[in-house]
């Protein structure tokens, strides 16, 4: 088997008496979408923060392409190829759409400490930014102030910025939250193709999307992964049905 692009190995994190992550292990293989689902308060955000670098696990390790990144800061992990989108849009709201995309390209390229030449004239950054906007369908909004975008468009821009990073691994925290049906379908189609460029660890509430897209699904409940498997396996798992899907209709 090929080496996983991303591996979480026995990660535990507690806040006081609350165990937010309990001996979590999961991996993300090249070419796949691995979805992480779980009810609210299951510890998804805590886990994402530990993978991305905002939180340090108490025990356990995070591996990115075979490299131990557990002790590295967020910025370093991003440079090594972790492309993250945020649950709540984290964009420079005063910038234009294009500026936000250029920002991502610049962050990835480095050589940030240049003080004289206008950044919006750097053709390598511009072409990468425009290509990313094109792919998520925001090209025509390039001159719009980000703060004036609709909620759904901001989600698309989040994805576009992650694309400019040319990451080796995507870490997407609810990219479809708040999207309309049409936009949701478009993004799903896009993610479907995106997995060939880099695997995606997808945290998502939209069950239809998860079951349609994911190669594998992990179910997180009270900080513990209770099942990992294909969509069919997860659907059939009695434990998952009782704790998580029971209340809703199973797709």
């Amino acid at each position, binding site marked *: 088997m090929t080496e996983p692009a991303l591996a979480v190995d026995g990660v535990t994190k507690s806040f006081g008496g609350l165990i937010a992550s309990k001996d979590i292990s999961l991996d993300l293989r090249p070419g796949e979408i691995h979805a992480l689902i779980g009810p609210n308060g299951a510890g998804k955000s805590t886990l994402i923060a530990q993978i991305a670098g905002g939180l340090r696990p108490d025990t356990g390790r995070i591996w990115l392409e075979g490299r131990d990144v557990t002790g590295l800061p967020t*910025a370093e992990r991003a440079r090594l190829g972790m492309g993250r989108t945020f649950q709540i849009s984290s964009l420079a709201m005063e910038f234009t759409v294009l500026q936000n995309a250029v920002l991502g390209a610049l962050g*990835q390229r480095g050589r*940030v400490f*240049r003080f004289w030449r206008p950044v919006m004239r750097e053709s390598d950054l511009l072409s990468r930014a425009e290509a990313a906007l094109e792919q998520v369908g925001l090209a025509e909004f390039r001159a719009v*102030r980000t703060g004036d975008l609709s909620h759904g468009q901001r989600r698309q821009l989040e994805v576009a*910025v992650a694309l400019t990073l040319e990451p080796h691994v995507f870490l997407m925290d609810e990219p479809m939250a708040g999207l309309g049906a049409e936009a949701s379908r478009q993004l799903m189609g896009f993610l479907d193709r995106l997995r060939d460029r880099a695997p995606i660890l997808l945290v998502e509430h939209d069950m239809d999307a998860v079951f349609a897209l994911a190669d594998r699904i992990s179910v997180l409940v009270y900080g513990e992964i209770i099942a990992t498997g294909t969509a069919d396996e997860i659907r059939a798992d009695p434990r998952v049905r009782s704790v998580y899907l029971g209340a809703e209709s199973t797709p």
Partner: protein
Amino acid sequence: MTRETALNIVLMAVLLAVPLAAWSLDEPFVITLATRAAILAIAGVGLNVALGLGGLVSFGHAVFFGLGGYAMGILAHHAQTYTPLMTAPFTIDGTTSMPVIWLVAIGVSVLAALAIGALSLRTTGVYFIMITLAFAQMVYYFAISWPAYGGEDGLSVYVRNGFPGLNTMDPIQYFSLCYGVLALVLLGVSRLARSPFGLMLQAARQDPERVEAIGQTPYRLYLTAFVISGAITGLSGALFADLNRFVSPTMLSWHMSGEIMIFVILGGVGRVFGPVAGAALFILLEHLLGGLSAYWHVYLGAMLLGVVLFARGGLYGLLAGREVAHD
């Protein structure tokens, strides 16, 4: 041309035309006022790099202003009294050459900003405001209690320092020099605001988490901005002391930090030319209202309240509208 650009041109033209008119009418006092405005504008443009672009509310920028002033005062004092600044391990003499003084003022400010910034930037928000204030107050009280250079009384310099090819004692020539420095600083900061560094710095102001997620470290951006900011304010301090031929701890006081911040807020936070409008307006008010009442700061305070409550973008926000993101 955007309205902001048009406003920039008008502003700089007025700042040039007023002293030129005063010169032809032989009104040296007005020239001095305009020179003050130009120099204070430089200090504000400097603070604006940290405050406007980086979102770093430094309430201690008087420390750089004052250090620039003392760099001028101490070097000129030694040159004019023919005493070396130090003799061991090697001899350093004073100087009356402005370019050298400016370089020293900038160098000292860079070092101070590195030290103050490296420590202060570990905090954010109100703690950052207080710690920058605390550093400035430390230097202020040090200057007051250090007798070698006049202590509380300050240090007078008898003749304004020289600049190659100019008679700096002639008000209009010194104004032109300061105006030229202001123009160069504005050019530099305009370029910086649009540079890769400027884009990343402004992103770090709006959303530090985003900057980390794209692989950059906000702390480094902030510290660099703080150092550039301090250097520019230090340079203006040297010019200011030379204008008055006098430097005293007042230049280091928290009132001064507040005044520099007022220039930025009055003009429009984050607008490159904003502090020029702010400083010019401040000098104008000080002159006009100061003639009416010794308590003119009351009116200034009321005005500042008005700006903060009703015109958040300052003069530039009022006249040029919302900031246009530039491609």
